[in-house]
């Protein structure tokens, strides 16, 4: 079977200069979100879900099924909305297996305790 090309929907966030994507299987309702964004205001320490809610609207209004919420990496310039997306509409969260190296390095930087 030839490899399938994804339907790609892009959502650029000017606040963080970050591109987030919904990729959809052209042969079914299945989709994945790549690099979701959880809005964060550093000055007030407040979180917002406007960007994630837009993705949820897009997925639900089109009748798509969220199978995966995947990260290209541990981002240093925006927060991930992966748990919020999964809590709202399901899906599994995944990342590269070298995450343990990142956790070791930054667990030390933030003295994150035995969890890291």
């Amino acid at each position: 079977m030839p490899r399938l090309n994804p339907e790609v929907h892009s959502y650029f966030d000017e606040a963080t200069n970050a591109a987030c994507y919904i990729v959809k299987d052209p042969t079914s309702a299945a989709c994945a979100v790549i690099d979701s964004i959880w809005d964060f205001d550093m000055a007030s320490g407040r979180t917002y879900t406007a960007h994630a809610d837009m993705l949820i609207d897009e997925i639900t209004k089109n009748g798509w099924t969220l199978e995966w919420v995947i990260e290209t990496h541990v981002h240093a310039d925006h927060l991930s909305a992966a748990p919020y997306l999964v809590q709202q509409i399901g899906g599994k969260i995944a990342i590269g297996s070298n995450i343990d190296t990142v956790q070791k390095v930054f667990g030390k930087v933030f003295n994150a305790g035995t969890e890291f």
Partner: protein
Amino acid sequence: MDGSQFDRLFDDGVHFKIGNMDVEVMHTPGHTPACVTYVMGNSAFIGDTLFMPDFGTARADFPGGSATDLYHSIQKILALPDETTLYLCHDYKAPGRDEFCWQTTVAEQKASNVHVGGGKTEEEFVSFKTARDAQLSMPKLIIPSIQVNMRAGQLPPAEEDGEVYLKVPINRL
């Protein structure tokens, strides 16, 4: 430190499916040790590796980053078919370009990326990258982002008062 906050961890070269669509995972470290590229059909989602050709490449100076690793990861991406569409993680515009762009191709990157196009050698790249990264300030949200994202997007556990706090390490970054 085992990544157990995530539902699945992808090794280099594994395949998984979104519905019926195959996705290949390619490890592309350098910006961070855990960076990956997701290849599906004619498209690749390359995270922070290459940026638009007129902007260049991701920085490699965060703790755990490596300009040498980034060079080799970029070569893996440039080895994909020329017509592959590359979807970026960021854009910052560039001199002479006033619109955000986040989509390019392997052929465009090979021909004109200002950091690696035209067949720059590893030595040229690493030396340039190290000097350039030393001039960059830290991203505005690095401190909250890392603490949340290394936990798969979860906030740190609540403290004794039931509230959640983020830390600011002093003189560490």
